[in-house]
């Protein structure tokens, strides 16, 4: 059919040249505009820098010359912070897989290579007890850094999980409208009504009793389930937020325009809907991550989350509370983990705030 139709002569001369000239008239996309405005927001920018540094420290933890986070030093009580430069106490040799387990726990291939690199660079040298030690004589700085890995990993995995389910589900629901939308949203309502804390506790309890069976038969390990379960809770709100955005009149007319052009539903979803709800999603994410971090800490605190010898901020909080006793207060066990967690959450909230302003179309150009 297309072949038979005569095409209109729009009569533009020199189109090729104009196309080349057009390269000189670059537009500023909304993302570029938002980034420019985010850079002007000092609080948000410093938070972003802080988080970036923090995340790289945490990611590169095996590469850093930190003492082993699980090496015991059975003294009578926790040692206070000392300002010693460091010592040559990191006298592990890493040859077999068991060697790694001695200094850390089950590490991934990449982590092992980083440990190798650290050994090659720093040798036996390790930092001093800058943050003191805990009741079992383990180095607190090292535990905070290694613990942040768990916390960040949990929150990122769960957030990603909620992002994928929530955005797709919410956008699809809002786009279809009518009966399908109705049905999908009622389902969300039903999920909302379930007290998830109990479900999580229930599932995790079952998993820890039957763990050996489950782990030997299938590849279910507790941590993966832990991520999935948390993600499965947080997608609900995400779905609602996204659906609301899709339905907002501001977004509906250009979607209708795409439909009038004959665009397919997946095309509308991924070309028009998702990029336009992304800004709201990003803002929502920066506020979800702290919530998930706290939830992880809470579950670990209850003994349902991460288990020793691994360490997470929740477990450090448990150690911290043990350290509060009327006879002698080991303040560093409370102050340092709390400061690490608190500053991260604060930075995330600052960043979320800044992002919300930067991405708000009403404030654009202001």
């Amino acid at each position: 059919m297309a072949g038979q139709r005569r095409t209109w002569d729009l009569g533009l001369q020199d189109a090729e040249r104009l196309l080349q000239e057009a390269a000189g008239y670059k537009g500023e996309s909304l993302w570029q505009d938002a980034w420019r405005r985010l850079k002007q927001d000092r609080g948000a920018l410093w938070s972003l820098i802080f988080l970036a540094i923090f995340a790289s420290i945490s990611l590169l933890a095996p590469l850093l010359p930190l003492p082993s986070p699980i090496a015991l030093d059975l003294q009578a009580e926790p040692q206070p912070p000392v300002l010693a430069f460091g010592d040559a106490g990191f006298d592990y040799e890493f040859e077999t897989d068991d060697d790694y387990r001695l200094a850390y726990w089950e590490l991934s291939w990449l982590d092992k290579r980083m440990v190798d690199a650290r050994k090659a660079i720093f040798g036996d040298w390790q930092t001093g007890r800058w943050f003191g030690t805990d009741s079992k004589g383990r180095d607190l700085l090292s535990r905070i850094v290694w613990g942040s890995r768990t916390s960040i990993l949990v929150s990122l995995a769960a957030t990603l999980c909620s992002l994928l389910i929530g955005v797709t589900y919410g956008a699809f629901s809002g786009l279809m409208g009518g009966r399908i939308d109705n049905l999908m949203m009622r389902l969300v309502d039903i999920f909302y009504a379930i007290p998830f804390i109990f479900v999580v506790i229930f599932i995790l309890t079952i998993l820890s009793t039957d763990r050996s069976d489950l782990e030997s038969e299938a590849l279910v390990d507790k941590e993966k389930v832990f991520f999935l379960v948390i993600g499965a809770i947080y997608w609900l709100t995400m779905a609602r937020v996204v659906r609301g955005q899709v339905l907002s009149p501001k977004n509906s007319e250009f979607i209708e325009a795409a439909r009038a052009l004959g665009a397919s539903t997946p095309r509308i979803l991924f070309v028009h809907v998702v990029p336009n709800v992304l800004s709201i999603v990003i803002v929502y994410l920066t506020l979800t991550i702290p919530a998930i971090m706290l939830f992880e800490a809470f579950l670990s605190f209850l003994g349902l989350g991460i288990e020793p010898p691994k360490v997470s901020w929740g477990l450090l909080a448990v150690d911290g509370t043990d350290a509060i006793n009327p006879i002698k207060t080991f303040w560093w066990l409370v102050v340092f983990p709390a400061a690490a967690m608190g500053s991260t959450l604060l930075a995330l909230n600052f960043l979320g705030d800044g992002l919300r302003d930067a991405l708000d179309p009403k404030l654009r150009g202001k």
Partner: protein
Amino acid sequence: MAEHLLEVRDLHKHFPVGRKGLLGGPAAMLRAVDGVSFTLERGESLGLVGESGCGKSTTARTVLGLHQATSGSVRFDGVELTTLARPERGAYRRRMQMIFQDPYASLDPRQTVGSILTEPLKIHRIGRPKERKLRALALLDAVGLNPRHINRYPHEFSGGQRQRIGIARALALEPELILCDEPVSALDVSIQAQIVNLLKELQERFGLAYLFIAHDLAVVRQLCHRVAVMYLGRVVETARREELYTAPKHPYTRALMSAVPVPDPEIERQRERIVLEGDVPSPMNPPSGCSFHPRCAERHRVAGGRCEAEIPALRGTQDAGGARLSACHLEE
């Protein structure tokens, strides 16, 4: 005479409102379009005029297939569209495009002008990427924008320029019919005239037919060969432009015409105005009989309470220039 380009017969579109229970059926029906018929020829423009809630926008959207018709028929170039399966409808969609009211909301803010204009071609798999891009440049030029601005984003343009982008997008597939949904009502006065002129020029150049939806009678008069006046989901009068504006027949058309302020103090202060009483009734609960009767000043001229009891049919004459119809008991 050949087939009409567009023929709409007894079109109904009812929306469910509210819900009985959690998943139950609708509590009420909003009869947005309630038996609308009209025809449109190639290269012609038909104005669909009425106040908010009269169903003019819904009619256009149903014709285009953005809404599923409740009942009735929409024939485009002789082919019934309402029963057409999705894949075949795509081919007709190419020949029918739409321009939207709000130039700020109808363009995706995250796309460049270039991708907005190449999208229709991409969807219908026309041309190679380079050809599409050159086509987009030519479209920009055709609607009076600088083709060099193809890499810019909608927010970098003013309202009138954005509306031009919207028009260029509608032209991309070389349609025969363009549905214009209040394309100038969101624009400033000085820009309105530019867009009206552009639409006229494009019609002449490409032989387009317009279904032009508007509440502004003066703008419709500039653009449309024929006009249909709607009230509460029904067409109350259809006529050629000259006839409608010089001798409106239906009392509602007369009132509508009289309500438009004239930008001339000498005339505006002396002329007799028909001021309608009351508000437009809700389309969920339209009045019995002629839906205009509660506000109609000439009701007393019809005997025996027929206005309250009986829905008047569209009656009148049909000639080469189109139908001259009006739905009023006074016309009998």
